[in-house]
Every structure is written in C-alpha cells, then in structure tokens.
C-alpha cells in the first residue's frame, strides 16, 4: 500500500503544537510591529514636515538673500558703470563673484549691457556660453525700461542647460540632471547721476542662471550637512513638476513625502517643494526593532519546534513501536519480546496484538500441516499419473508397433491367400501328375500301355507340368512382390523408384484386402517419374488409405473406385488420393489425424492408421497432408511432398 499520500502523525502533532504556540506570538508580533510602524511613520512624517518647512524657509531665505544681494549689487556703481564701460569690469566682476560665491545655485551671473552683451560674467568659463537661447528674453526685458524690475522667469531648454552644465562642471562628462528647467532672474541696472537728475537710464541688467537642478542639489546638500541625510527633495512644483519625474518615479514610490509651499518673491506661479524620506531609512529603527523581534520569534520558533518535536516524538514513539510490531507481524515474524509502553491504552493494543499473533501462529501451524498433507497426496497422485503416463506411452508404442505389424500381417495374409491358389493348383497338378504317373506305371507294369495311352499320358503330364510351372511362377512372382513391399515397409532405405509402377505393385499386393469388395483402383500420373525417396513411406501411406477406404468407406454390395493421382509441381510432388466411399462428416474430419481416433474401435480399430500417415508425411517426407470430405461423397487426401525428402536422423516413426 502506498503511504506517500498520508500525513505523518508526528509531523502533524509537531506542526499543531508549533502552530498553537506560534500563532498567538506571531499575531502579537505583527500587531506590535504594525503599531510601531504606524507610530514611526507618523513620527517620520512629522519630522519630514518640519524639515520640509525648515528647508522651504531656508530656500526662501536664500532666494531672498539672492534677490537682496542682486538688488544691492545692481545698485553698486561699479556694476552699473560696468555696463556702461568695460573700465569698471574688474571691480564689477569681483562683486558678481562675491554674489555667486554666496549663492551656489546661481550657476552663472551675467552683467549684460542694454544691447544684451555680457559685459562681465562669473564664473569666467561662462564667457563661453552663448546666450542666444535667452537673448530674446533679455531683449524683451530691455524693451520696456519702465517695467524693468527684478523678475524671475522659468525656462525649459535642455540643450541650453546641457551647455550650462558642461561649463559649470567641465570635468564631469554627463551630469545626471533632474530637471531641464532653469530660473532666470533679472535685476535692472539703472544709471543715475548724483548731480544730474536728468540722467536716469537703464544701462544693463544682471541675469542670473539658476538651474532647478542646482536648487535641488543644494537643498539635498543642505539636508545632508544638517544631518538630515535620509531626507531628500523629491520635486519642485510650479504649476507642473519642474523635475524629470520619470527618472525619479521609482525612488519617489519608495519615499514618504510631504509638500511645502515655497514663497518666492517675483515668481508669479506658486511653487511647492516636495520632500521625501526613504521609507526604509525612516523606518530604520523600526526595521531594526522588527529584526530583533523576528530574531526572538525565530528563536521561539526553534524552541517551540524543538519542544514540539520532542513532545510529538514522545507521543508518537509508542505508536511507532506498535507500528513496528505490526510490521513485524506483517512480515510473519511472530517472535515476540516484551514491549513496555508508557500509555495503558497502547499497552492494551500491544496485548491484543500479541494474542492475535499467537492465534495466527497456531492457525499457521495448522495450515502448514494441511498443506504438507495435501502436498504429500498430490505428490503420490502425481507419481501415479507419471507412471500411468509412462504406461500409456509404452502402450501407445506397442499399439503403433502392433498396428504396423497388423498391417504387415494383413499383407502377409493377403499374399498367403494369393500364393495359396497357385500353390494349391500346383499341388493338385502334382497330385494329378502323381496319379498319372501311377497309372502309367501301372499300365507299364501291366503292359497295358498303349501308344495313345502314352501320348495321352504325356499330354496330361505336360499339361500338369505346365500348370505346376505356371502356378509356381505365379507364386514366385507374388512372393517376390510381397518381399519387395514387405521389405520396403519395414525398411527405411532411400532409393530410387518409379512411383507409378510402385503404386501399381502396391495395389496388386493389397488385392486380397479388396477380395470381399468390388473395388477398382485407378492410378494416374507420369509413368516415367522416378523418385529418390522412401518407397516404404509411400507404401505405408497408400496402404493405410486403401485399407481405410475398404474397411470404413466401402460397403460390399456396391462397386467402389479409388483414384490415386500424382504430378510434379514447382519441385513438389502433389499426390491425390480419392475414394467414393461414405465420406466423413465435418466433426470427424477435424479429428481424422488424431491418434487413437477411430469410429470402429469396437470392430478392432486402433485409431492410429491416419495418425501414422500424418507423421510419415510430415516427418519422414517433410510434406503436408490435408483431407476433405463430406458424408456420402467419399474422401480426398491431398499430399504435397518435396521431391527429395529431408535427411532423417531418426528412422523410426511412431
């Protein structure tokens, strides 16, 4: 029986104990951790909101400082005059550099004259920056001098920013920029003369390039330097996101985030910053606590698993012993030994099993005795059967031999009958001759012998002598034939013979068998056909068939006919035997060649004749034989034989 689908009691017990012990623990742990997480998230959110507000204030302050600085610088005469003449350039540049130094987000500060020409540029490398992407905006700025105040614009120009970043950090091949937006801040430069009120002209402007990326980066730097490294700026929003959110979405999703408004003077659209803290970092303490808790839970699992294992083993161990005992019994091992279990219920089972085992042993012993007796009986019966079989086999051999001899005897009887006539005639003729000789002798002695008497005597003597000679010749001929047939039947010699004449001779030798019947035998076939085969086999076959036809198929009142025909076809000899006897019904036809099958057992039939024929055809001559018949239509045997029989190692045919 397959046990793979069954559950183990021990594992079930172990898991049950473990589950019972752990489920409450786990539920409690989950609850506590979830509460801790909630509290931590709330705390993180609170901190984050605070940080966001501080940062927003910080950015606003920087922004205000920048504007204040810009305002201050834009009122500096050196800066104003620099837009008028390059003579003031070096001094103006120093002031722009101071301003840039205070505002790292201001990547480039340009002092442009009113034609938009960058008179002074900080940092120096930004001299290489082509301002044409924003020149139209600068021109616009100067288009209406009356409106020229500090202002801020947001532009989006990735190519321009690429160039800005390339100049800002020439050693960095590709800055991973988070935004393609840039704030462009303008501050007007008004030239006024101290003592000449009429001189008040917009001579230039300060243009500050402040990439949003720089604000983002500086904000994160500030956060880091302020020890809020886990907190990051996630987004800057002015109507729409100013950051390339697609590159930060994944990060964004892993963050706890809050938004804080950013009040930027001179900026028309409201601006918000979104701050975030990496969820993992925010909950790091909880994660640590969680880790510890899980370590404890893990320890408890191991502990409970050990306890469950030991407990289940103690519970299941007696069952295992019982199981072992049952397995032992199932293997027919009934050698009992004292099994002491700690549970009385199980001990009772053991006792019952012991009793069962004893009972089985007794039954088994009884069964074994029965089997032994029966085996002995069977053995005896078998021996008897074997003996009977051997006897039957011997009897069969004897019968076969007897049949053979019987056929030979019949032949002999026939031949004797044939010989008897010429011999009887010869005896009669000899007796007549002897009587004649006595008469002659008497006449001679009596002297009564006349010439006519002598002539008569000589005539008689010659007649008798001819008669004797003739009949003896006939007898001699018969004997010769008999000898040949008899020798062939008893001999297994291969020789060459003429089939047609051999059959004719055989028919002749069987004439006595037909004497009570009106039988004519017609032999047809190539009279010149010479076979190198076993003529005795042909004799046995045809003798059997003809005797069978006469004995079983013909009645004495009617004339019967036998046809024997043969021909050579495809190196096989096809021999057909047909009589016009009673025929055989279908049932009997099936068993025609079976040994001991006869319909005339009461009349002394052995049932071996056609069986012998079958054996001779199939074994001796290596051919096949078939029979076809129907009641009242005679029987036909068809033999197909190789022209040359197979070489025989066994000469006797059973």
């Amino acid at each position, binding site marked *: 029986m397959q046990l793979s689908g069954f559950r183990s009691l021990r594992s079930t017990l172990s898991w049950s104990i473990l589950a019972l012990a752990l489920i409450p623990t786990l539920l409690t742990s989950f609850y506590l951790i979830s509460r801790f997480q909630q509290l931590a998230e709330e705390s993180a959110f609170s901190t984050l909101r605070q940080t966001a507000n501080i940062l927003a204030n910080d950015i606003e302050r920087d922004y205000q400082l920048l504007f204040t600085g810009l305002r201050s610088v834009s009122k500096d005469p050196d800066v104003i005059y620099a837009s008028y003449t390059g003579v003031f350039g*070096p001094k103006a540049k120093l002031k722009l550099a101071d301003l840039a130094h205070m505002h790292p987000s201001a990547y480039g500060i340009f002092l442009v004259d009113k034609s938009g020409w960058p008179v002074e540029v900080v940092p120096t490398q930004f001299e290489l920056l082509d301002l044409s992407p924003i020149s139209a905006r600068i021109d616009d700025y100067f288009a209406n001098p009356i409106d020229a105040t500090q202002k801020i614009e947001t532009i989006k120009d990735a190519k321009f920013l690429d160039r800005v970043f390339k100049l800002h950090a020439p050693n960095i091949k590709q800055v991973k920029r988070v935004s393609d937006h840039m704030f462009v801040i303008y501050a007007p430069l008004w030239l006024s003369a101290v*003592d000449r009120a009429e001189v008040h002209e917009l001579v230039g402007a300060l243009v500050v390039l402040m990439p949003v990326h720089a604000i983002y980066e500086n904000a994160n730097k500030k956060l880091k330097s302020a020890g809020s490294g886990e907190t990051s700026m996630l987004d800057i929003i002015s109507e729409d996101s100013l950051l390339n959110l697609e590159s930060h979405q994944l990060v964004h999703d892993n963050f706890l985030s809050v938004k804080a408004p950013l009040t930027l003077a001179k900026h028309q659209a409201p601006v918000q910053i979104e701050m975030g803290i990496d969820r993992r970092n925010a909950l790091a303490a909880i994660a640590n606590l969680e880790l510890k808790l899980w370590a404890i839970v893990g320890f408890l699992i191991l502990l409970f698993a050990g306890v469950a294992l030991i407990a289940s083993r103690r519970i299941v161990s007696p069952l295992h012993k019982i199981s072992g005992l049952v397995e032992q019994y199932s293997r027919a091992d009934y050698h009992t030994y004292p099994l002491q279990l700690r549970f009385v219920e199980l001990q009772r089972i053991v006792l019952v099993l012991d009793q069962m085992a004893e009972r089985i042993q007794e039954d088994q012993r009884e069964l074994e005795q029965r089997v032994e007796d029966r085996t002995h009986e069977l053995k005896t019966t078998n021996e008897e059967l074997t003996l009977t079989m051997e006897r039957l086999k011997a009897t069969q051999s004897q019968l076969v031999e007897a049949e053979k001899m019987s056929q030979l005897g019949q032949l002999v009887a026939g031949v004797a009958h044939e010989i008897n006539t010429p011999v009887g005639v010869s005896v009669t003729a000899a007796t007549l001759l002897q009587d004649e000789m006595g008469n002659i002798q008497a006449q001679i002695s009596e002297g009564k012998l006349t010439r006519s008497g002598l002539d008569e005597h000589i005539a008689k003597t010659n007649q008798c002598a001819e008669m004797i000679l003739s009949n003896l010749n006939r007898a001699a001929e018969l004997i010769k034939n008999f000898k040949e047939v008899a020798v062939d039947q008893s001999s297994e010699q291969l020789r060459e013979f003429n089939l047609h004449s051999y059959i004719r001779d055989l028919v002749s030798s069987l004439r006595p068998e037909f004497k009570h019947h009106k039988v004519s035998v017609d032999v047809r076939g190539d009279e010149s056909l010479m076979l190198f085969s076993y003529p005795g086999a042909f004799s046995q076959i045809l003798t059997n068939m003809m005797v069978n036809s006469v004995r079983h198929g013909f009645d004495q009142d009617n004339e019967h006919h036998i046809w024997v025909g043969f021909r050579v076809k495809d190196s096989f000899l096809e021999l057909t035997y047909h009589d016009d006897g009673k025929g055989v019904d279908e049932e009997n036809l099936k068993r025609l060649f079976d040994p001991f099958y006869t319909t005339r057992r009461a009349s002394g039939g052995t049932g071996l004749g056609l069986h012998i024929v079958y054996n001779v055809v199939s074994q001796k001559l290596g051919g096949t034989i078939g029979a076809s018949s129907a009641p009242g239509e005679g029987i036909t045997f068809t033999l197909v034989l190789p022209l040359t029989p197979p070489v025989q190692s066994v000469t006797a045919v059973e």
Partner: protein
Amino acid sequence: MKLWGLLFACLMTFSTSATQLTIWHQKEAARDWLVELCKVYEQKTGVKINVGYLPTGELKTSLVRSVIDGDAPDMAWVPSDFIGDYQKLEFSVIPPELITATSATNHLQTVTYDNQHYGIPLTGGNHLLLYYNKKYVEKPATSWEELVNQADQLKAKGVKPIGWKYSESYWFVAFIPPFGGFPVENNLLTLNTPSMQETLTFYRDMTTSPLQVDASCDYDCSFARFNNGEFAYTINGDWAYTDIAKALGEDFGVALLPSLNGKPIQSMYATMSLVFPNQSLSGEKRKALIDFANYMQSFEIQQRLFSEISSFPVHEQVVAALENSADPALKVFLTQMQKSKGAPPTPAMSAAWIGIRKGFDLYMSGHASPEEATALMQRVGEHELKKSQKQSAIK
C-alpha cells in the same frame, strides 16, 4: 565711501576760496608731495588746489563716474593711455602751445589721438624693468632662456627665481612683441592673432617651466616680497624704482627686460599727463588751469619730480641733464624706456585692455583654448570699441 567723503569734505572746506581747482591722481609717491606742492602753489598764486589721491585702478573709474555725475575734478594726473577714453571722460583738447616742457615725439604721441592733444605730459616712463637681487644674481639674464637656465641654481639657493604681478594685463602685453604681435594697430584691434595665442600658451607654460612662476602672484611679488628677498628677479614698473633700490640697498640691481625668442620683451610706456575732464579747460577756470599746467611743466618742478619722487620728467633740459649724469642703473632705466613702446592713447587700446583681461582670465582659468580666448578678446574688444564710438559722455 570714505574716499568720496574725503573729497566732499575738501570741497566744502575750500568752497569759500576765490579760485579752487581740484586735481586727482594715482601716483603713490606723489601722495603727500603733491599736496605740499599745491600748498606752495596756493601761497604763490592764491589758487587753492584740492588734491585727491585714488589708488591705481580707481582713478579711471572714479573719473568716469565723476564725469557722469557731473562732479568731475578740474584736472587729473593720469597715465596717458586714459586718453583712449577721452570721449567718456570728456577730456579737453589741449592746444599745442600749452605743452611747453617737451616736444619729443615719444612724449607727444602718448597724448595725441586723431591729431589732437588731450593731455600735457608731465612725467615719462611707466615702463617695466627687470629688477634683481644681487645677493642671488651675479649677472642678470639677458634672455628668457638664460633666466630659465638660472632657475635651478637659484632654487638651490633657496630663492624663487622670479615673480611678478602675473595676472595683470600690463605685464602680460609686454610678452606679446617677442611673438610678433601687439594689441592694436592703427586703432584696430589685433587680439585674435596667432602671436597672441602663442603668447598666452607661453605665458601659462611658465608656471610649469623650471621657473615655476607663481600665477597667483599679485603686486606683492613684484614689490614687497621681492624686496624681502623671496625672489631673485622681478618685473616691475619704473614707479617702483626708488623704493626697490632703497629696500635692497647694495643688493639692488636693475636690467633691461630679457629677450625672448631673440626679440626683447617690450613693455609699454606712457607719460603721466595732466588731463582736463569734463571739458574743464573750456570752463571758467581755464586760466587757472593753464597756469597750474605751466607750473607743473616748469624746469623747477620737473627737476623736483625726479629728485623728490623719482618720477622721470619730460622737460627736455631736465632730461638731458639727467641723461648726462646718469649712473649705470639710471642708464638701464633710460635705455629700457627707449626700448619700450608707447601705449597708444586710442579708444582701440582702451577697448583692447578690456578684451585682453577677459580673454586672459578665461585662458588662465583653464576652460578655454588659446583660440577661444583670443576670439573672446577680439569680440569683447570690438564690442567695447563699438560701444565707445557710439557713446559720448552722457549729457
């Protein structure tokens, strides 16, 4: 602001005088001297002269501002190349007869633009010289290659070979002629040239050559630090001649600027000239101004300029006397002045200075190629020149 306050106080103090003139200058050596001189002049003529000193670099901007503001001084004693900005500064055209001290072409060229004189030369020079410390240098280098060869030897003595105000354009342009160039030609800018590019490359390479010229060197290297023996050589202007000579004493040495590529490093020279901003010479103070100009060109004052503040006069007789009695060091001074090239008092040169500075800074910052730097020089210079041509003083 202090400066403006001082000027304002001066003006207020003497507002009650009959005729008061104001003069601004940047000559450190003349800071007290001129004040004293003006006091003497006042005693003689009753014309009070208010002297305002502004450090180098401040004078021009202050003049521009004052012209715009309408409170320009009556006179200014300025390097003659200020005349390039004559339009912005509204310098008065000087009638030739007012230039009495000199008729030397090299002097007059420094104040003449478009066949008009815009200044009266008072002192000459303002050119660069090679100063050396005899403690370290026995025989001064006559070529830059020789100077380079001396570098290891000098360093072995624990002294830096040479240092000067490296980033100052006035020093830089002296290295252009050996490469076959000059910033302007016929009032046209010639900044974006191969010779300028070669000069830039050479100039920057000096920082990594055996000379290890310190690119961060300011004027201190040319003066105080040299005087303290930190450098074996320095390049400084004639204005520092007396102070360096005093500081080094026996170790003082001065030589011609060495040759480079077989050609002399050629400093510019200028005259310190008296100019009249805001067309002051056409005003009501014309007479007083002419009188003071004549005073300053007088034999006596020209002599005192040399003897008291080591400024080389332009007065031909005084110059002749000095040349005749010159010691070897002074002869070097004079020879170098003769070899120097006068700074063209043209708007182009003024614009060129601006372009040169920006291109120089860009190249030295390492962010641009020489070609980009000189292109910027040219671009900026041309823009500035165009702007100056469009601008006249804001009225």
